[in-house]
């Protein structure tokens, strides 16, 4: 119980900090919209011969993954200022608590960016969301958690390193391929109005398994990263 309470205190602290400046939030959102714009030159959504649903899933998750890296980088980096990380690690909060708290905050922030970008995206690329909205939201929640767990863990890993901003994407993206693959396939089907059936349910299972296994691994092993 203390575990959850302490995690929420840390998550609240991160969110409060971010909401005061909204730097990462605005930057991520702007970045996502820019990516949509750039993609429109490559894939021309105005071309009626190409079914936008073929590539919309991939587009969306690429944009989310890239935008996510922006805010995830800051996650542990903001603790370095004023030596806050030491104070947190020295506190009674277990390293797993620190990790979970930050992951929850990152999850909320990334989700906020995604929901707004999704609205923009559906307008720009004329994608129908209403048909499978419930499942779309489910997929977004599961995949965002996957991005958050790996991203936050690697943010902790790279926090003290020289080339932190570069290292985080290099390490995170290959790791996320299974989750992003599942998300892209599911989203493509859901945008086309197809429900979750036996054919694509396996991808939901992949997402859930990915989330559960890596959440456990991260929480259990994060003390190796945080405690010298």
């Amino acid at each position, binding site marked *: 119980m203390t575990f959850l309470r302490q995690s929420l205190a840390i998550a609240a602290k991160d969110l409060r900090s971010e909401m005061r400046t909204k730097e990462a939030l605005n930057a991520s959102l702007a970045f996502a919209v820019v990516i949509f714009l750039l993609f429109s030159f490559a894939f021309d959504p105005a071309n009626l011969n190409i079914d936008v649903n073929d590539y919309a899933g991939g587009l969306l998750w690429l944009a989310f993954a890239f935008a996510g890296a922006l805010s995830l980088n800051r996650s542990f980096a903001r603790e370095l200022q004023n030596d806050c990380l030491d104070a947190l690690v020295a506190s009674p909060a277990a390293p797993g608590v620190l990790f979970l708290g930050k992951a929850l905050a990152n999850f909320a922030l990334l989700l906020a960016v995604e929901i707004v970008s999704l609205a923009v995206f559906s307008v720009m690329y004329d994608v129908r969301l209403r048909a499978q909205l419930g499942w779309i939201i489910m997929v977004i929640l599961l995949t965002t958690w996957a991005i958050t767990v790996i991203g936050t*863990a690697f943010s902790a*890993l*790279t926090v*003290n*390193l*020289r*080339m932190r901003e570069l*290292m985080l994407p*290099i*390490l995170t*993206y*290959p*790791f996320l*391929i*299974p989750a992003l*693959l*599942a998300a892209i*396939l599911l989203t493509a089907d859901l945008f086309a109005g197809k429900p979750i059936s036996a*054919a694509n349910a*396996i*991808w939901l299972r*992949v997402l859930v*398994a*990915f989330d559960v*296994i*890596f959440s456990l*691994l*991260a929480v259990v*092993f*994060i003390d*190796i*990263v945080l405690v*010298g």
Partner: protein
Amino acid sequence: MREKIMYLLAAAGIGLVTWTLYKVWFVLPKEANVAAYQILYFHVPAAFTAFTGFFTALVLSGLYLGTGNLRYDALAAGVVEVALAFASINLITGMIWARYAWGIWWTWDARLTSMLTCWLIYAGYLILRRAIDEPTQRARLSAFLAILGCVDVGFVYKSIEWFRTQHPSPVLSIRSGGGMGPGMETPIYWNWLAMLCLGTVLVMVRMRQEEISREIDSLRRLAHAY
């Protein structure tokens, strides 16, 4: 003693490879309809060796975390480097064969794509190590990455395989196409053994290098501290 083992393993490895080469070129019946399929006898074992390496690195990382002995970390790093080399061999031979069999360099075949992803994951491991100067911190962080990486390899492999069953692409395999006859598969496993021998030799060489560089590093620290 250590040198003797290295020479023995190297000899065994080279011997086995020579023997399988002989078998593949001169003894086994040729697959008439598949071009340059002989390269598969190196392509497939290279993948096996790479995955053996990734798993070994996981075990070694666990041993480091359990004992705190930096030798395990050095060993893990050496194993990953060698595994990555074999992964590269797998990718390159795969591309060569794709060119011969399909006329294109890259076919997005499930196994090639998976191996590329694993290659990126473990290249990231080596990049991480290079970014950390202090040996104990480097060992700790690498161990964390090695553990998560090996688990992810499983996810990568399976998910890309399932993807390709739904969205087929040219497949780099003669097993699924023509079907390899009995006896034609054994050279693959002998070559795997050969590669394990050669891989071990390379790891031993790499280990020695790491030990020397660690000594230099600590001497440097000693000199700077006082």
